[in-house]
């Protein structure tokens, strides 16, 4: 259940973003990647999530090499939670057949149960366009519940708590703790202090990955 990246390169037109990166991550490891804005962290995440196809080199996630297969093994929590203009339930299930029991379990793990129980329409409450009817912390926890419900072995965290204030971040961090327990986790951030608890930390600089700690 490991991640294997070899000689990976990626460019947007003439701009080379990722240069010849090789990396091996064992199952259950927690890896941190630090880098300045525009250093290619998000591009690397999208490649690891199977959202982009490598232009050269290859990525293998839990034995899967094709992007559509890689995506099945990965869940991702981003800085922007990207909620659909639908109900909480639909945002968690993404239209897939998931039992109410599993949905509530995901909500419990994402510290959402109390808040949802207080809503008149419970799980059927509409979150608005781009989560406009819920707070930033609630939106992020719905996104975490979605990732929990997917039960993927690999979790990618893309600046997951950077847009939250100190009070909200606490609840989100607790939810993230539930999400990442026993999973392979790759966190990216531009701040080192948000990468606590990582086995290894790398720095992305000029498209190359170097060992930071």
């Amino acid at each position: 259940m490991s991640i294997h990246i070899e000689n990976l390169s990626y460019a947007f037109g003439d701009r080379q973003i990722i240069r010849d990166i090789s990396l091996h991550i064992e199952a259950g490891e927690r890896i941190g990647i630090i880098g300045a804005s525009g250093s290619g962290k998000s591009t690397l995440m999208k490649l690891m999530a199977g959202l982009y196809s490598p232009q050269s080199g290859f990525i293998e996630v839990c034995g899967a090499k094709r992007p559509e297969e890689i995506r099945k093994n990965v869940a991702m929590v981003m800085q922007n939670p990207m909620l659909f203009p639908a109900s909480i339930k639909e945002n968690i299930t993404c239209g897939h057949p998931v039992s109410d029991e599993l949905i509530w379990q995901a909500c419990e793990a994402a510290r959402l149960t109390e808040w949802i129980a207080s809503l008149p329409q419970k799980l059927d409450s509409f979150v608005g366009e781009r989560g406009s009817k819920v707070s930033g912390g609630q939106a992020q926890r719905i996104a975490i519940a979605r990732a929990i419900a997917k039960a993927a072995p690999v979790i990618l965290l893309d600046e997951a708590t950077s847009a939250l204030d100190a009070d909200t971040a606490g609840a989100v961090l607790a939810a993230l703790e539930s999400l990442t327990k026993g999973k392979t986790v790759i966190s990216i951030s531009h701040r080192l202090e948000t990468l606590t608890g990582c086995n290894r930390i790398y720095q992305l600089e000029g498209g190359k990955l170097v060992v930071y700690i």
Partner: protein
Amino acid sequence: MSIYKKAGEMKKLFTMAGKVRLFIILTILRCPFDPLHTAIHAAFLQYAFEAINKGCKNELFHVCVLFAAGTFFLFIYNGTVWTIYSAYVAKWTGRIRKKVFKHICSLTLQQIESGTTGEWITRLNSDVQVATAILNKALHLPHAVVSSANICFSSIMLLYMSPKIFGLIMAFIIPHILVSQLFISRPMSRYAKRVQEAIAGNTTDMNAFFTCAEAAILYDARGFLLERFEKSSLEIRKSNMMINRRKALSSSLLPLMGLTGYLVVLLFGGKWIAAGIMTFGALTAALQYRGGVIKGLNMLIDSLLNIHTAMAGIKRVNETMNIKSEE
């Protein structure tokens, strides 16, 4: 763009939308209306004037009954064909929108990110709207202005020639306007508002894919978003169907009221000619003002203009459908 290229682009659009055979059949079925209309009209004038000349009221009555029956069946025929045609066009438009959205959804994230959200929304909304105007928008503002001027001119001429005939025509035009306002225009505004509301919801559903593309692809939610899009598209289609039904009613009402007006003017005109109040020539001239070749000519010019405008949308819709998914 040459006529062959235009024909080629149109063929691509129709093939993509499907049910081309039904479209051809409906178009063929619509064709006889105008020739039949003219034929019935000409025959009626011919036999009615002969009856008037002979002074045979009984024969005139029979001609009028036959004309009324012919007009009634023509009204039923045109109304039926037009209703089926309108329903076809509403579904045809819905199918094109669905296929374009489905195709855009099948593209990779890199391809989607290569264009702006506005560009994709325009390709899906405005381009499809402009392209489908080739079937669902026959007449434009210039035609309304020309026809308004034509109505004003004909009314002044009629008033000058014969205030009585003008009065008779007004007796049909005013109820026609009232019926149109009460039963067609007013509900149309309501339905049009519903369409706009449904489009707003539909655009939100559509936007969700572009603004949440990463989550939609990663969590395999494209089918879910497509289902929501289809649901809101159905709302638009329902409201459009109501609009098209009213349009069909309006299209049926126009020949019914117009031809009935002709009949009454002729019946009264005959009486006035017999009574020596009016000459036969004056009556014929007054009747000639009611119709005209210009109306048909204007419609043709407007239709050609519409096709010309729609070509821009058709070309861009085909362009979108030609983008191959890189995955």
